[in-house]
Every structure is written in C-alpha cells, then in structure tokens.
C-alpha cells in the first residue's frame, strides 16, 4: 500500500521571539512563534534559568489568553450606576486628563486620600516608588492576602523566606517536606525537581489536608487538619530536642541561641538581649566564665544556662528558653496527635527519619570557605533535609508563628543554606529583619510632597509603627498599627471595607491595578459589592472615585469609574527586577524582561507606561525633569534602562555600564534591552562555588552582595530564633516605654507577640461553636489555572470549567450525601450551594474546592450561562473580612494579629444535603452586562 505524502518539515512560523511568561507568577522563559505577526505556538526556552525548556499547562495555553475575547479594547468612563456596566468609550487623552485631575486634587489636599493598591503585578519596584513620589502611605500590592506571614516570619528569623525567595537544594537534598504547597509560584522548578528527587530516591513528604497534585506523588501524605501544622512541627521539635539530635555547632555559630536574655519579670528590659555599652548582644563565654560580645571569634559560647552578669542582671541563653518551651509535655506527640489528626507514631517516625537523614547522611562538599569571623572551613558541611511551605501555612491567623516554628525546626537541624538544605536566592539573605522602615507617620504626609521613605518596610519596635499619639492607625488598611504591627505587605483585603466604613478615615480616590477585588480576591463578596456601591446621604458614592487598570473584563471592571485598559503579556515591556521579586536561582542572581512580541490591535496601553505618564502630568519629582518635561518620555522601557535607585543600580542588573559588561552596579546602558533580547530576555550570574552556601555568614558572599547593593554592609545574618522585636511589642503591651498600645489592644499584643514560636488555635475556630461549624473549608490552586485569569481561556476552561465541593467518603456518608448531590455549606457569615464529589485523599474534617473557578455571570465576556457561573462557586462568600465584635464594639480584621495576613483558611463550616437539588450553585448574582469595551 502506498502511504500518502506527509510533510514532516513544515515551517509554521516565520519568526521566534523570546520573552517571559505571565500565565502565573513563576516567570518562565518562553519562545513565542509567530507567523505573519500572529502568535502560533509558545514553548519553553531551553536556555532559561527558571524552566530550562519545560512549560506548564497554563504557559502552553497563553496563546488563548493573548487572543481572549475578554480583552478590553479602549478606555472606559462609567456613565450609569456602578455595577450597571454602562460605560462610554473615551480617548486616552481624556482618560489620562481625568485621572490626572482627580489625583492632583487629592495630592494638593491630602495625599492619604489616595489608596493605590496593585494585585498580581510584578512591577512593585515601580509602583511603590510612584506611591512614594505621590506622597501617599496608602500603597501595597496583594501580599497581605497572599504571602506576608511567610515573608515576615522568614525575614525576621533568617533574612530569607519561602515562596519563590529560596528553594531546597534540589541537587543534594534527600528528604523533602512540603507544607501546604499547591501549584503556584516556582511551579515549574518544583515540578522539575520532584521528578529529579524521585529519580534519585529522595523521600518526599507532603503535609496538606488534600492529596492532589504534588501531594499525590509524594512518598508520604500527611492529611493534617487545617491550621494545626504548628502543632505537628512543634511535636517534631519536641522529639529532636528531647533526644539532643540537633546541630549544636550550627546553633552556636550562626544563630542567636547562645545570646543572653535578661530575666527581670515586670521590668522594662525583661526579655531583651543583654547588651554591652557598644550595643552588642552578649554570650556567656565558657572559658573565662564571663560575658563576651556575641560575635567574638575566640569566645566559647554556652548554649544553655542561667547566669548573673557583673552588673547584677540575671540572664539566660535564648536556647534555654526555646528548650524549656518545647520540652514541655504538651508538645509530646501523644498530646498533639488528636488535635492535628496525625498519629503519634507517625510524628515520632518522621522525627527519627529527619534526624537520620540530617546527621547520618551528612554531606561534605570539598569547597573551602571563610565565615564572618574569619574562620576558615575546609569543607561545606550539609544536612540533606529541606522544607518548603506556602499558603497552607500563610493563610491562617496563626501563620506567622507557625512559619516561625517551621524555620526553628530547619535551623535546629542546621539546614539553612547548607548543602542539601533550604537555600537563599540572592538578593537574600538580608538583615533579619531588613532595615528599611515604612514611611507615613503623622507629619510625614504633606500636600504635594513625596513621602520621606517607602510606604512599606519592616518595623523593629513600637517606635516604628504608623500610629498617632492616641495609637490610631495612619494607613487606610491599618497596616503598621496595633491591629497589624508587622504588616510588611499591607492589608489590601481591608481597603474597600475600611474606606466604606471611614475607619480610620474616608478616601477620595481608589486606584487599583490587576486585582479582582469585587469578586474572587475579596473576602465577603456580597458586602464588598455593597461597599463599592454605597452612597452618602447626598447621593454621592462613599468611595467617590475608582480608577482601575486591567487587560480583561474582570468582575472588578464593572465597579470602577475610569478604566485604563492594559495590554496582554505578549504586547509589553516588563522587568522582573532584583529591586522587586526577581527570578534568581539559588546559585546566583537572575533577572529578566518581557519584550513586546506583537503589537496591540486595540487602543490599549501598558499600565506601567501609563503610570509614568500620569506621574509626569502630576509633576511627581522622580518622573519630571527640572523644566517640567517627562523624565521617561519613552515610557516603561525608558524607565527600565535609565532609572537609578542608587548610583549605578537600576531595575536590571545585567549588561550595565557604557560597554554593557558591568553586572549589578554600572551606569545605565542605552543598549541594555537589546542585550537582554540577544541573551534570551534574561540575565543570570552564577556565583563561584565558595559563595553558594552558608551565605548568611559567608565572608566572600557578604562582601560581594554589598557591592551588588543587596545589603548595605557585609554583616552576618545571624538567625534570630529568639525574635527580640516581638518582645519589644510585648513589653509595650505591658505598659513599658513611651509608645504603648491603647488598652483595648494590649491583651492581643501580649498574647501573640511571643519571641519564641508557639501555636494558638486559628481565630475563627475559637469564635464560633465547634458543634455548629465542625468542618474546615479551604481551597486549592488548580494546576492548570492561575486565579481568575484562566477563566476566559478557551482551552483551560475545557479542562476545569467549573468546580465541585470535595469531601471524604466517610464524612459524606454521615450526612447522607452521595456523589454529585447538591449540598449547602454554611459558615457563621453566609451560605452557598455547591455540588459534592467524594474522595479518599482529604482530611476527614475538611471540605475543599478549586480556587477562583466560580465566575459572576456575564463577566470575562463568557456567555451568561457559562458553567463557571451556573455550577461554579466561590468559598469567598462564606468568609468575613472582619472578626466578630469584641468588647467596645471593635472588629479586628480576619487576619493574623502579627502581620495582618488574611486568614482565608481559618474558615469553619457545616454541610447539609440541599433540599433543593436543582443543578445550580448559589448564590447567583445578577448577570453583569457584557462590556462594550471587550473585543
């Protein structure tokens, strides 16, 4: 038989351009194939440090995101009521003129009346600087409802963090524990690594109430009860400390374990480090039996003990206090097991496996290095136990202390930035905590004046808070107030509620970018819609003006007054900067760019260029020249190349200097973007071997990092197992010092600002009756969908176009629920109806669903009857953004009391088989009108 001719060498593209993916936060390198200017195929860039050629289900569907019919096509001005969808298309000049007028009025009157919050953008280096130049402290990105518990816990403990800011030493680790990690940031690197770990025979343990995705292929799945990870980890610590199987050398040299703490109950210095006249913390030297400065190279510090200083003060080593806490019988596995749903023998076995791997499988790399005290080490000693944690830890009201507990376990085993352990990615490590303080204190916000510093930073003591003399919050989201003192990422989830309640004050303009705050990014969607449409007695809106920029017709677009349509990710310049959240590898710093691979076919502009344009029209100092002309007339690419944050340091670290060969520090290079494009749109600087580990105390690395501008001085980053800043807040709560919390806040501060990690029950579970709401309800991020962005993607919605409520078979049986039955889910705040699916791999006291699949009918240019809106649903409707009233009528936000992180995963519910088995989810909101601007 003759076979038909098959052309096996078709050339279906005429051009290939590299750029950076934006289908999630992973930021892989991609190659975009084009034919006649149209995108035909996207694959992974093999030369890219992040993904090394692979691509994920989202990334390969980017083509449908780019050509989505939900794309906005022209600036819009609201002409009907908010939510009506009645807009008029306007020209850019009118849009920019309006925005400038609204913003200049605010800036001239009171810059605080602008709340500028951005969602999932990757340009916080620019947006934060813009807010500073504008002069408003009311700026943050979305970290307050995402990751701040992890960022703060890590940065205050070891100057690094989970999320994408560090990673396990994939090459050497032998035992890998994932806590609450679903598909997310670092998605392809983790997937690549899991494949490699399995090939090498390393053990993977997943601690997660739900066993899908990464958990499904783990060697061991621990289906923990949500919010109890801190108990489980504390029990592991109890086991290893009881058996003295901890890394004493690491603790003595690189942590504050031997530092002396004053014991003076009731005194104003109780719990602070004993310091000498020069301010150095002290240790007890075993040779001389006397105190010595903590970083004395010749001292022999005592790890444990209580001592009396020559001046009479009583002191104890930090480690003694830590040991005393975790040796308590309350942390014994048998006393923890029932509460976290993990058998005591499992906890004991895992502790033994961790210890065996860490100490009996010790790694010794033949790489000499010198530490911060000038001590020469022949080898780099490693302990091949690594951990990674994400939202399953962070989205609880006990997430900060739980994350600190995980870091304590890592450090007791000596596994931070050692071979086989958890590694920093430059620019980390930073000082613990970093030195930058938030600006916005009373008197620092002035009309037509920039802030004296950035709006976000790290408070180290009550004096750093943004509160007035009466202790009242200065920011609209109450960040850095007594409500949330360490709110390093702000509290975006509270902005709309607080603005509508005028608590602490009302605002004039709400300006947001890429954040679906009227839908899946809001806790308590129904009331949030109410706040956005709430009116004053005179008929004006309580939040008078809302400017919103997005590329797509998301639910939020309908509630804004002025829409600035953004481009897709394939139509823009971007920089993934070391000043923001870079793509660095553990082996060295890296950054990257996006280049426009195709021109917009609509009247849209990239948001960052628009922001610089508005900045110039407002005359913001950094964005205008002395003659008033724009400083960056070429828009965002002009800024990327020419902006300098410090002399020689700009958004991109590669290809700097006149000849384009300087790295890290160098004069702006006009050809920098072309150099990036020639290099595949990324830059990566691999560190020499002697700078790849122990970087918190690695002399050569610290010197190099100082040159690169990552740190101000080459000081070691001593791990702060005992977190003194927390104790300063506790002392203030006891009435010490000049800045003390108002009486109503004191107990909460005293209870939660423990300088040693501990566990407390998540707030919602404590505030509602367990018998009424016996179950936990959480979401998971699906592998093939990133937030709501995936919804309008024709391919991805075929894979996951609706969601179900998943539950354990025995739980369903108790309630007479069968597969595909419709059920009601009730919380203290609300009720939804959803369709049930039964499974084995879920904690028996937990129900769950996929995140952000449910859509509002009519949004995203989907047909009004689309499955996402008719069968899909959100858990958000069940979650209150405020905790119930306490004495005095005050309502705290539903957040971690230390950082303000939104506590989405604290949700408690009950389920019943629905009386109405009609196949439709509830609640159903009125269908949104399809936007005229959507193409």
């Amino acid at each position, binding site marked *: 038989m003759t076979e038909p001719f098959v052309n096996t060498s*078709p050339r279906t593209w005429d051009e290939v351009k590299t750029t950076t993916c934006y289908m999630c936060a992973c930021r892989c390198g991609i190659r975009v194939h084009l034919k006649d200017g149209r995108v035909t195929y996207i694959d992974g860039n093999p030369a890219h440090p992040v993904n090394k050629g692979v691509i994920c289900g989202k990334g390969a569907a980017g083509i449908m995101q780019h050509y989505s019919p939900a794309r906005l096509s022209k600036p819009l001005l609201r002409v009907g009521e908010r939510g009506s969808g009645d807009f008029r298309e306007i020209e850019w000049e009118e849009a920019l003129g309006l925005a400038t007028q609204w913003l200049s009025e605010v800036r001239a009157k009171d810059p605080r009346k602008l709340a500028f919050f951005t969602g999932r953008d990757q340009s916080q280096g620019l947006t934060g600087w813009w807010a500073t130049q504008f002069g408003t402290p009311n700026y943050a990105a979305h970290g307050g409802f995402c990751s701040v518990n992890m960022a703060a816990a890590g940065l205050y403990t070891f100057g690094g963090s989970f999320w994408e800011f560090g990673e396990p030493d994939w090459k050497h680790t032998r035992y890998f524990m994932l806590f609450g990690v679903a598909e997310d940031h670092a*998605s392809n690197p983790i997937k690549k690594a899991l494949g490699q770990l399995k090939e090498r025979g390393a053990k993977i343990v997943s601690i997660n109430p739900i066993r899908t995705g*990464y958990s499904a292929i783990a060697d061991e*799945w621990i289906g923990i009860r949500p919010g109890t990870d801190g108990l489980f980890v504390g029990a592991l610590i109890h086991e290893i400390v009881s058996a003295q199987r901890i890394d004493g050398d690491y603790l003595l040299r690189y942590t504050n374990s031997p530092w002396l703490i004053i014991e003076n109950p009731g005194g104003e210095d109780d719990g602070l480090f004993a310091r000498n006249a020069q301010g150095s913390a002290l240790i007890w030297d075993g040779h001389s039996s006397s105190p010595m400065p903590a970083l004395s*190279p010749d001292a022999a510090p005592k790890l444990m003990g209580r001592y009396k200083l020559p001046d009479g003060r009583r002191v104890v080593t930090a480690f003694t206090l830590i040991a005393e806490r975790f040796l308590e019988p309350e942390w014994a596995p048998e006393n923890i097991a029932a509460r976290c749903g993990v058998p005591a023998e499992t906890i004991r076995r895992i502790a033994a496996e961790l210890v065996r791997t860490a100490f009996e499988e010790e790694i010794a790399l033949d790489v000499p290095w010198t530490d*911060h005290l000038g001590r020469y080490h022949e080898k780099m000693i490693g302990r091949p136990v690594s951990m990674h944690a994400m939202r399953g830890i962070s989205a609880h009201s006990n997430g900060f202390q739980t994350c600190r507990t995980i870091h304590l376990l890592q450090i007791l085993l000596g596994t931070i930035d050692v071979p086989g352990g958890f590694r920093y990615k430059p620019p980390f490590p930073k000082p613990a905590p970093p030195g930058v303080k938030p600006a916005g204190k009373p008197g620092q916000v002035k009309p037509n004046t920039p802030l004296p510093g950035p709006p976000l930073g790290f408070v180290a003591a009550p004096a750093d808070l943004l509160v007035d003399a009466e202790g009242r919050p200065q920011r609209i989201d109450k960040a850095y107030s007594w409500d949330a003192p360490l709110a390093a990422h702000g509290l975006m989830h509270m902005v709309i509620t607080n603005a509508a309640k005028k608590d602490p004050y009302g605002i004039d303009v709400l300006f947001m970018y890429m954040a679906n705050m009227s839908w899946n990014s809001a806790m308590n969607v129904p009331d949030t819609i109410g706040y956005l449409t709430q009116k004053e007695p005179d008929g004006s809106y309580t939040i008078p003006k809302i400017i919103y920029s997005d590329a797509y017709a998301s639910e939020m677009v309908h509630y804004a007054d002025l829409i600035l349509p953004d481009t897709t990710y394939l139509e823009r310049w971007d920089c993934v900067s070391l000043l923001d959240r870079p793509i660095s590898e553990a082996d060295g710093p890296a950054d990257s760019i996006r280049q426009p691979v195709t021109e917009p076919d609509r009247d849209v502009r990239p948001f960052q260029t628009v922001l610089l344009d508005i900045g110039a029209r407002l005359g913001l100092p950094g964005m205008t020249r002395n003659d008033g002309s724009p400083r960056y007339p070429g828009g965002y690419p002009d800024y990327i190349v020419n902006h300098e944050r410090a002399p020689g340091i700009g958004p991109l670290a590669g290809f700097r200097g006149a000849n384009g060969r300087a790295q890290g520090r160098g004069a702006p290079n006009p050809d920098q973007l072309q150099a990036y494009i020639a290099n595949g749109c990324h830059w990566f600087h691999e560190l020499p071997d002697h700078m790849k580990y122990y970087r918190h105390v690695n002399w050569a690395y610290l010197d190099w990092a100082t040159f690169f501008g990552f740190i101000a001085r080459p000081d070691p980053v001593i791990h702060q197992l005992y977190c003194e800043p927390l104790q300063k807040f506790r002392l203030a709560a006891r009435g010490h010092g000049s800045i003390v919390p108002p009486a109503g806040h004191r107990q909460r501060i005293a209870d939660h600002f423990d300088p040693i990690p501990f566990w407390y029950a998540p707030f919602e579970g404590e505030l509602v009756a367990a018998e009424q709401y016996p179950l936990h309800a959480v979401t998971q991020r699906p592998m093939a969908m990133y937030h709501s962005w995936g919804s309008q993607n024709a391919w991805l919605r*075929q894979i996951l176009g609706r969601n179900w409520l998943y539950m354990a078979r025995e739980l369903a049986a108790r309630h007479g629920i069968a597969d595909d039955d419709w059920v009601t889910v009730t919380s203290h705040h609300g009720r939804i109806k959803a369709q049930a699916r039964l499974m*084995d791999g879920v904690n028996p006291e937990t129900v769950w669903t996929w995140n952000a699949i449910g859509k509002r009918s009519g949004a995203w240019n989907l047909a009004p009857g689309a499955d996402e809106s008719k069968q899909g649903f959100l858990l958000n409707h069940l979650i209150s953004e405020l905790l119930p009233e306490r004495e005095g009528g005050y309502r705290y936000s539903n957040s971690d009391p230390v950082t303000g992180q939104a506590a989405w995963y604290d949700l408690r519910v009950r389920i019943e088989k629905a009386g109405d088995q009609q196949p439709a989810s509830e609640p159903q909101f009125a269908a949104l009108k399809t936007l005229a601007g959507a193409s």
Partner: protein
Amino acid sequence: MTSLPSPSAKKLGLVIDLDTCVGCQACATSCKEWNTQGYSAPLNDVNAYGSNPSGTWLNRIHGYEVEEAGQAQRRIVNFPRSCLHCEEPACVTVCPTGASYKRAEDGIVLVNPETCIGCKLCSWACPYGAREYDQNDGVMKKCTLCVDRIYNDNLEPDDRLPACVKACPTGARHFGDLGDPDSAVSQLVAERGGYDLLPEMGYKPVNKYLPPRPRRDGATSRPEALPKPDGSAFDRLFAWADRLLSTGKTPARAADIDNSGKLEG
C-alpha cells in the same frame, strides 16, 4: 478494511511515568497548541466561551483514585491518555477507506484527512479512546507523535521531540524507539517494569506506562522513634550542651584575616 504493513523494526512511541505525573496538563495544552497549527490543524473548539465547552484534543489527562496493595487509602494517579501506536491497531484494520494507516517506516499510526470520511468506525474499534472526531472538520483526529516535529529540519535537533515530551515539567514523558532494546526508553521500561495497557486485547501497544513506585510511608516503613530514656529530658539536654562546648571543634582561623572589628555592634 485497511491492511497493516509488515512490522517495522523501528517502533516509535512514548513511555509515560505514572510515578511522577502531577496532572499539570502541560502535555495536553502543548499538544493542542502545536497540533492546532500542525498536521492535524485545526483542533476545533465548540462553544469555547459558552456552557459546556468542548473541543478536539489528542491527549487528555485523567485523575483516578486507585487501590494500592497494603494501603488503607486509595491514591490519586494522574493518567495521560493518547494514541498508543499499537503494533496491531484495530483502528487501522477497520478503516473502510484506508485513511487510517500505520507507517511502515516507524510504526506511527496516522489518519489521512483527505480520505477520512468521518465514519467513526476506528473510534469504536479503539479500546483506549484515543481518537477524537472533530465536529467542525468531519474527520477523525489523533496523536501523530508529532510526526511534523520529530523529523522537522526547521527545528533545532534538541527540539525534535513530540510537543508533550518537550513540555513535561516533571520529566514523566519519554520518547524513543521501543523496537530497539538498547534505546533509553526500552531500558527505562525494563528497569521500571513498564507495562502495556489492556494487553489482553492483543493490539500490542507500543507506548508503555511506568507504574508508580512503591510508597515509603507508615504502611511500608519500619516504625522508628528517637530514644527517650527515663529522667529529665532537660537535664540530659543541658549535659549534652555542656559537652558540646568542651569538645567543640572550632575551625582553624585564617592567620592573616581579622574581620572581627567591623562586625561588632
């Protein structure tokens, strides 16, 4: 009826590792985006932005909870499904027009869209559900093993792989000649106990699946715990900490370096 060529020595196919597949759909969307502009173009979608959207896919991933020996709980296995390029494919022999055929050169099973009449006999004959009828085009479509990539002179040699294999982030998909016992894929199958789907049907699939590796958890690991002698754990820890100091092996100090001054305070 369509006849099969003499068995080829070269048997190109996929080896799919069920131990490392996390179900991320990278292979599915990468397949769709290549093939909607490749040999099978276009892979049409129906109701793409409405209710119950559907479309033509040459590779789909299913998740199953399966029983596992010695384990109380079933485990989720992610199972990618596409044409297995059988050595004796019934989908070819039932084809009334000769549109379905198995290539003599490398064993790839293809459909010639010019002669396919869309009668769907082949999809009834395939027990693996690997063929999809494209409603818009009225023809049957299926995995081509990216025949227009693996021999494509316009691609860099490293890129001459099926789109799904190149995409897979966990490295769960492997491509090669399963007719050559020395090939990397054949070695992998031998090493890991790769198996045929539904071997009893007798179609001799070329593609192989690697079974999940045994788990190492409470059911399969030996119980162990750290020692816990009687007496005060605190006292023992204190004694241990004391010994730590007395036997402390402080590393040698580089003679010519004194960095202590600038690090204080």
